[in-house]
């Protein structure tokens, strides 16, 4: 062709006029995922149990006199087992979030949407709600029949029963969530004696309603339309990311055939077009069309296709976790797995490991005492009756232990500087206390102007010791 190789004509295919006219908006069709059993289903349910055991169980653990995990917003103290964290410690939360993000990048680069399919609360709660729905309304065909059936007593009773169970679980979830911020045992007592604060009631019902709405009704609509993660996941994949895919070279052309028949002789691929992979999909897609953004990587289609392959005596893995490169280059399993430890993954792992170690070391070495030193602004300096020049400071002592602590304050940085009239400061457990401190120097011992000084604050038992810089002003 006499075509400039650097220019490319992109053919525009006009929409044919014989397509039917449809509206821009349409009610979303309800999806009835079919029950599936298999390796990935077992993994998914394992994670449901694990995550929910942690979520529902953690607030009930006690630590001494208090709840082990408690975020006391009112008193601005955050208790995580033995740790007492102040708002000033939010850097650790930042660190945790950075680690979470990096961990996400890492396992998404390795095996795609592991979060979506196994750990995301939307998936987890939808699974639990669908389990309840199955127990009340029956399997896929029974549920579809019930929805299409006319109004009857049976339908009314089943629907009501299902919703009551859903609502009950939702309120328990909301209650547990609030139990992280208000001690859950007290919250329970307050609930039964109708003494719950109005904000607590609001949040229990708000979070409960969100659970009920999202897991009961919205389900895949969240993944498809609301969640930003669904959209930018693909940006984190590369050609060596393990994704749930259908092998078209093996499966096509698809078609039904007798069980004992030889597919090759019939000119057919391994796919029998049973559409079970579509029926089990919680987002209602057809994985045979390839990687789609709606696919949450739950692996239900893998499980169900494997059972069909087993029944027909074909090899498993028509739909399986594999990489784009493996498909393109027809790699063996070994070759595919070797690419898992590629530079990108190794770099993520290295950064993640160093950050985790850094965070743990930082937490371990953390001083359980914080002091803020604020010099009194109103009085620049004072000449006292003792013949000294004095500056006044406000010290805010923050005790991050759960015992009473006693602290001593010393100062250095100017000749003859000393703290006047402050024997010991006693601070209660997890208490933040303000104390006025005077620093004095002999009159005339320092030049006029601003001098840098250093306060050394030490606990009597010697376990915590910090230094705080400040300034001493000598008037002209």
């Amino acid at each position, binding site marked *: 062709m006499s075509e400039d190789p650097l220019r490319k004509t992109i053919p525009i295919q006009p929409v*044919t006029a014989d397509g*039917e006219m449809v509206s821009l*908006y*349409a009610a979303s069709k309800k999806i009835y995922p079919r029950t599936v059993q298999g390796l990935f289903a077992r993994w998914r349910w394992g994670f449901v149990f694990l995550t929910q055991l942690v979520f529902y169980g953690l607030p009930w653990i006690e630590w001494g006199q208090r709840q082990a995990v408690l975020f006391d917003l009112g008193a601005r103290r955050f208790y995580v087992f033995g740790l007492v964290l102040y708002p000033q410690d939010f850097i650790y939360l930042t660190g945790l979030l950075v680690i979470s993000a990096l961990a996400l990048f890492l396992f998404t680069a390795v095996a795609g949407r592991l979060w979506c399919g196994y750990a995301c609360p939307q998936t987890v709660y939808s699974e639990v709600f669908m389990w309840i729905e199955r127990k009340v309304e029956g399997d896929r065909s029974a549920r579809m029949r019930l929805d299409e059936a006319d109004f009857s007593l049976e339908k009314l009773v089943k629907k009501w029963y299902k919703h009551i169970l859903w609502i009950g679980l939702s309120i328990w979830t909301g209650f547990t969530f609030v139990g992280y911020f208000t001690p859950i045992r007290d919250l329970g007592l307050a609930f039964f004696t109708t003494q719950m604060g109005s904000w607590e009631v609001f949040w229990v019902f708000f979070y409960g309603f969100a659970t009920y709405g999202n897991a009961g009704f919205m389900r895949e*609509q969240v993944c498809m339309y609301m969640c930003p993660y669904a959209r930018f996941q693909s940006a984190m994949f590369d050609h060596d990311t393990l994704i749930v895919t259908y092998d078209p070279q093996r499966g096509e052309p698809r078609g039904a055939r007798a069980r004992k028949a030889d597919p090759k002789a019939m000119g057919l691929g391994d796919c029998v077009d049973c559409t079970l992979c579509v029926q089990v999909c919680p987002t209602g897609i057809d994985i045979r069309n390839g990687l789609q953004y709606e696919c949450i990587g739950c692996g239900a289609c893998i499980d169900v296709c494997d059972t069909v392959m087993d029944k027909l005596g074909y090899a498993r893995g028509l739909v399986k976790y594999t990489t784009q490169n493996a498909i393109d280059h027809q790699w063996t399993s070994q070759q595919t797995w070797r690419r898992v430890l590629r530079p990108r993954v190794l770099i993520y792992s290295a950064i993640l490991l160093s950050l985790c170690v850094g965070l743990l070391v930082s937490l371990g070495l953390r001083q359980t005492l914080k002091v803020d030193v604020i010099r009194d602004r109103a009085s620049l300096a004072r000449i006292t009756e003792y013949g000294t020049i004095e500056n006044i400071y406000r010290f805010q002592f923050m005790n991050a232990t759960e015992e009473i602590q006693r602290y001593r304050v010393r100062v250095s940085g100017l000749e003859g500087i000393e703290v006047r009239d402050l024997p010991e400061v006693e601070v209660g457990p997890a208490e933040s206390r303000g104390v006025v401190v005077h620093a004095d120097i002999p009159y005339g011992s320092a030049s006029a102007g601003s001098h840098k000084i250093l306060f050394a604050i030490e606990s009597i038992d010697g376990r915590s010791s910090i230094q705080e810089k400040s300034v001493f002003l000598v008037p002209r």
Partner: protein
Amino acid sequence: MSDFIHNFWSVYITAITLGGIFACALLLWATSRKKVAASADNTTGHVWDEDLREMNNPLPLWWVGLFILTILFSFAYFYFYPGLGTAAGSYGWTSSGQYQQEVAKANEALKPLYAKYDGRPPEDLAKDPKAMAIGERLFMNHCAQCHGSDARGSKGFPNLTDADWLYGGTPDKIKETLTQGRMGVMPPMAAAVGTPDDVKNVAHYVLSLSGSPHDSLRASLGKSKFGACAACHGNDGKGNQAMGAPNLTDKIWLHGWGEETIVSMVNNGKTNQMPAQKDRLTESQIHVLTGYVWSLSNR
């Protein structure tokens, strides 16, 4: 009170706001009536880069429902709250009004806390560590900015820990000072005293009253001119607490020591104000604070 200089702006804003909301509603209505031809493979029909296609899925109806809800919400909002130009909204909400409500609510919540201190005399409160802890916190928040964190004051701001009082140091007087505030005015007295030399002499006489270093000759010359000062400061210079006139015979120099300072005081006068706390603190808080301030000089 409107900040706009002309009513036009209020109408303009209302028109744009309501117009915008109507436009959204219109857009929603127009697009919901529109029909498009569906293609066989559910794409828009265009192909980019050999195999990139754009899906043409319909938007879910729950999304449309939420949109409609937001439009209805906005109409309800503008009925109740301000936003359409200078319209005040049926709740008459203002941010300063909300602040007043919050302050009133907070004070109501604090009432039972202060109730146990209300009836007791300030001297009694001075012995109660919990009351003093509250007093200290009130002091740090409201008084320490001028009087210093240790209440020992600085130039122009009295030392509250000593026994020297301009207006009186009894609990009643302290409470009066806190509630009403004080406005101490020394008028310029140079004209009443005489020549600049006379002013200097009077300054030395004043220094002599407290036993501070002074020029004896000038002091004896200034004594006769002190009559102009005695009206407020008393013949003996011991001050007058009814007027807030300081005691000139003690060693406390609130506005600075020395001949120059005293001369400039006489020439220029001095106004020193203690702001009234009655609009900032509740009566109960002033009561506890009185006990705290009294305790500072009566340990």
